[in-house]
């Protein structure tokens, strides 16, 4: 659930970055060169947020992999019980 929420946030941040890129390009083509640097800094900040969320996903996945339930039994999958 936490991983799904993190992934959703990453998708939202990506959508904002896409809008930022297209808006910056439009402004540049219109001759407004002053928006380039603030847009780049904003995009970097958003990328930083994505990176933090990715680290969160990795951490949660690692915790899940190390939990006892995720370890396979050494007795083999074909052993039903007993």
């Amino acid at each position, binding site marked *: 659930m936490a*991983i*799904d929420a*993190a*992934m959703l946030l*990453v*998708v939202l*941040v*990506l959508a904002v*970055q*896409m809008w*930022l*890129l297209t808006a*910056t*390009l*439009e402004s*540049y*083509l*219109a*001759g407004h*060169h002053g928006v*380039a*640097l603030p*847009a*780049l800094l904003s*995009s*970097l900040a*958003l*990328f930083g947020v*994505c*990176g933090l*969320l*990715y680290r969160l*996903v*990795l951490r949660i*996945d690692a915790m899940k992999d190390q939990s006892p339930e995720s*370890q*396979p039994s*050494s007795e*083999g*999958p074909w052993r039903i019980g007993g």
Partner: protein
Amino acid sequence: MDPKDGSSTTPVWAEEFSVHAGEDAYVQRRQFTKFLVLTSFGMVAGNGWIWLKALTAKERSEWPQIAVAKVSDVQPGTVRFFAYPAETDPCILVRRISGEFTAFSQKCTHLSCAVYYAAERDRLECPCHEGYFSAADGRVLQGPPPRPLPQVTLEQRGDEVLAVGMSAHGAGE
């Protein structure tokens, strides 16, 4: 049989014979998130490229001066086509009904279709997506174009109309 180096608690058979083989075809969540983060970096790279272009762009200090047409050859309500500042930049000279000369880049700012002058409505029109521009200053009157048409600065010397510069900002700037 457990691995001898003790680096993993997973038995060798579980590593080599995964009962979850069918799920291997699916992308893991971490792989998908990694892909999204790389795409985010691509966006940053795009913004970085725009910034570099803005840094290296120079305001043009000298524009070429070219004779576009003779005043007597262009009647009110008619146009002439020419290239300015380079041969690859199509432009349109408009003599409006009032007799005033204006000139603009002929490339629509939406998707670069060639605009034409509709004399009965005194405006420049794009046939592709019905974008309309003012024939006075190139500003957008209607439609999807996001920016005004770049305007060519004209000078009249005697009977000749010359193009002497260009404004990338279009109308009013």
